[in-house]
């Protein structure tokens, strides 16, 4: 009896839950003119529009407001009871660069050598990674995808999570990644005396400064005859000239302060501090430096055994309250889809919902250097938006429609297709399977 009831439930649910494609139907993204009506629109930069309309045309947000004329040729999507947000931006991931964690040959985010800033993350982005649809159907439309490894491991890129070539995905900003020499003890089992650590840090810092000294010299004499082909150093020149952003990873409080001093002494104009796990310890100093930060992951354990258990949850809120401009990152690959939950935790533990939303939309866009095209719902910006059943931070909320670059992207992914196939599998179990003679009592 119970069993029959279960089957009945499944049968009833299948049509409700099936977002995915039908058996033999190929689902493609569609461009066009869309009118999203009757929605509660969170513009992020211009408040909330109750019962608003959003017009997408030719990839661009053409109009948004409470009294917007709906073009006759637009495909109307009635969003009654739903909400519209700018696509969420994760400011630190390996999306596209890593497919299966344990399989080395599917990992393309780390080059050999410590000084490889010319390595381009965008080149290695695999547009067909299964991770990408899994991520975007949760409303994350743009990610900062970063190389890692040595002290200058490469050039990161902002990518939109739709497109068939890296260039189609490119969201318009790149930046040099730098790992600042750390005074932190390193891995879990690292045991080193403070003296040894200090010495190691000093040596590493010298290496860093040598590279940047060369870059400054290179910038000065760039056009003379005797400059050798030096791609490592050449890649740093745009930072020296203020034409490209520099993202410096630093987590320990001491390291963050060292970065602030270093940036000041170098005079580089466009620098972002990333990681900032202990930013809460030195929030006022960061605020004073005016350097923006990318913090995360938020669902993380504290850096010290003696820290308050919620130090990582509270970190973005403390920095933001001190006046620091904060964007968030998951630092993840396959579960970048959890970005809204990292933001939700930050919101609950002091940042507040509005700031947390900014941290994964407009602040992120500004910090990465793509706010002219994405990060908020404004006329003229790219149509990176999603429609949800409610607050996207709330765990139970669902994303029902998704636009990236104005394309209406199908709401399917490998995980959804597996759900559709296996919720009520055909064939199901053979009754009294002889291989399984034990019947549940």
């Amino acid at each position, binding site marked *: 009896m119970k069993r029959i009831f279960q089957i009945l439930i499944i049968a009833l649910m299948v049509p409700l839950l099936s977002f995915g494609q039908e058996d033999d139907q190929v689902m493609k993204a569609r461009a066009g003119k869309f009118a999203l009506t009757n929605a509660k629109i969170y513009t992020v930069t211009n408040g909330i529009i109750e019962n608003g309309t959003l017009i997408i045309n030719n990839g661009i947000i053409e109009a948004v407001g409470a009294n917007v004329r709906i073009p006759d040729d637009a495909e109307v999507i009635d969003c009654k009871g739903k909400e519209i947000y700018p696509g969420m931006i994760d400011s630190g991931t390996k999306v596209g660069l890593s497919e299966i964690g344990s399989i*080395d040959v599917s990992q393309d985010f780390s080059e050999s050598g410590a000084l490889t800033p010319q390595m381009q993350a965008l080149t290695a982005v695999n547009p067909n990674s299964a991770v990408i649809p899994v991520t975007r159907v949760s409303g994350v439309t743009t990610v900062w995808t970063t190389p890692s490894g040595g002290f200058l491991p490469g050039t990161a890129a902002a990518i939109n999570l739709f497109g068939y070539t890296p260039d189609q995905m490119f969201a318009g900003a790149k930046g040099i990644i730098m790992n600042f020499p750390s005074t932190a003890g*390193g*891995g879990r089992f*690292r*045991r080193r*005396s403070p*003296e*040894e650590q200090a010495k*190691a840090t000093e040596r590493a810092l010298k290496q860093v400064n040598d590279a940047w000294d060369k870059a400054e010299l290179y910038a000065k004499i760039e056009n003379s005859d005797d400059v050798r082909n030096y791609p490592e150093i050449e890649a740093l020149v745009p930072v020296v000239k203020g034409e490209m952003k520099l993202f410096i990873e630093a987590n320990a409080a001491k390291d963050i302060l060292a970065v602030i001093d270093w940036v000041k002494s170098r005079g580089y104009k466009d620098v972002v501090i990333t990681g900032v796990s202990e930013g809460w310890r030195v929030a006022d100093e960061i605020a004073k430096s005016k350097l923006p930060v990318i913090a995360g992951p938020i669902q993380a354990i504290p850096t010290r055994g003696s820290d308050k258990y919620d130090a990582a949850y509270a970190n973005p809120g403390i920095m933001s309250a001190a006046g620091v401009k904060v964007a968030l990152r998951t630092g993840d690959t396959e579960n970048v889809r959890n970005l809204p939950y990292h933001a939700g935790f930050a919101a609950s533990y002091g940042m507040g919902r509005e700031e947390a939303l900014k941290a994964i939309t407009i602040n992120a866009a500004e910090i990465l250097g793509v706010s002219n095209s994405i990060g908020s719902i404004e006329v003229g910006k790219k149509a990176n938006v999603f429609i949800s059943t409610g607050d996207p931070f709330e765990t139970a909320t669902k994303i029902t429609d998704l636009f990236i670059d104005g394309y209406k992207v199908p709401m399917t992914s490998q995980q959804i297709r597996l759900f559709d196939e296996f919720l009520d599998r055909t064939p199901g179990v053979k009754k009294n399977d002889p291989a399984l003679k034990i019947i549940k009592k």
Partner: protein
Amino acid sequence: MKLLLTKTIRAVFLMLLTVSTIGLNAQSDPSGESAVTRTFAITNATVIQAPGKELKGATVVIKNGLIQAVGTNVTVPKNAQVIDGKDMFVYAAFIDGLSNTGAKRPENMPRPNNLFSPDPPNDYAGITPEHSLLDQLDIESNTIASLRKEGFGVSHSVPFGRMLPGSGSIILLGDKKHADELVLSKDISMFTQFAGAPGAYPGNVLGIMAKWRNLYRNAENNKKHYDSYAQNPSGIERPERDRVTEAFFPVVTKQQSVMFDVSSVLEVQRAIRLQKDLGFKLMVGNVKQAWDLGQMFKDNGTGVFLSLDLPDAPKEAKGKDLDEMTEETKRLEARKVDFYKKYVGQAASLATSGVKFGFSSLDVTSTKVKANLLTMIENGLSETDALAALTTNAAGILGIDKITGTVETGKIANIMVSNAPYFTKDSQIKFMFVDGDKYDFEIKEKSAAGNGNRAGSAAAGNDPIVGTWSYNFETPQGASTGKMTFAKDGGTYTGSMTSNDGAPDANMQEIVFANGTLSFIFMIDAGGQSVELVVSGTVTGNQYDAEVTVSAFNFSTPMSATKDGQ
């Protein structure tokens, strides 16, 4: 030329060695070190016969290796060498509850070819309870003299090894011609520790606990089988000889105690858990964190030897440093101080709860023994309890209280003589008697401290680490051997490692050498992943004893290296 010279020196040295060997057989003593008589009388001294039992102006007569008489009214024998004990303090020599004193570390068993890691040979697994300290006892070991110098007359010494290295014996800390003469009480304990086999079963505490239970339960059964067979072999299958199980028999019959090296509070409780499960007699040694376990020790009748090693005192911040500290740092530093107090107060708190513990010297640098004892006294341990721990308690736990531990007639002449009450800062040991033999120590002026490094700085021109070293460390896949070379460029060391197994050379990074401690880092390639190994240890002459820690895994292993000849 240089080579030739070295060879010549070596030849001369060998000749000398040969001569002295002959001397053992038929020669007199041209060294002049032998005593004229083995009868001694220490007169007019303050004699602390036992903790809390003091005689003033007393005489102690030593003869034939025994304490012949003690008292204020004792006649000095004619043939005695008389030592004027005015202003001297006579104590029973101390007893060390657990160490490797006198033992020579055997070569690690190389990883067998085709090692079957789930079931390695016992020698590789470290399951050798049938071994004895006596197999490793080396009369020339300098550890004997250095522990004696700190006032110890006997030590419960155990062999080196892994899970079950063998049995421990009580040895006299004297100079003897044959190892057997050092032995006061043979094979009194089965020594065991939570030390897994590299890359083979039992690999860690999990496997060791299980293996212990298994070995013990089988030994119980086998003992019955052996006994039954011995009684009447007819109709009973012949028990197979198994040295491991036989070594457990005295433990099963409670004739022999188990000695566990358990420094942490969790290890202590694991040892007690095993004891509760199985029911053997338990001693624990090298105990460092048991301040809360007094009741547990009493309930289980555990013999306890506390480590004489103590953590370094947290540095107290002063002046500017203190001003710059955040409230948080101050709180955390305060907690460190609290815990430091627990470590240094461990002995006091256990004494207060009535545990009759001894001390063990396993992890302590011998020169720190007295300073650490004074630290424990400053932190609440009474002098009487400290002395009891060093003498009578230890003798009681080890079952040698009838023969040593007090300055009483009839006991072995194991005696320490100091120039002031021992538990005072400036006291120094003037004589030691071990088994009736006298050892003299020079009394240093008070400012003697700090002289220790003189030799080291004199040799600074000739850099102690620059050159080529042969190293050896144990990995899960067997021993790794090779050469490491250090050079000095300006003030900075550089170095590289060349492994004998054909792995690519690794450049060392972050080489730091200070105060005799050498540390560096090198990276090796593990299937495409770069893994960092941290090496840190002490350089003594041409010997380097270090630990290799693999940062990414909770793994560390000892490394030793010897500087190659010039």
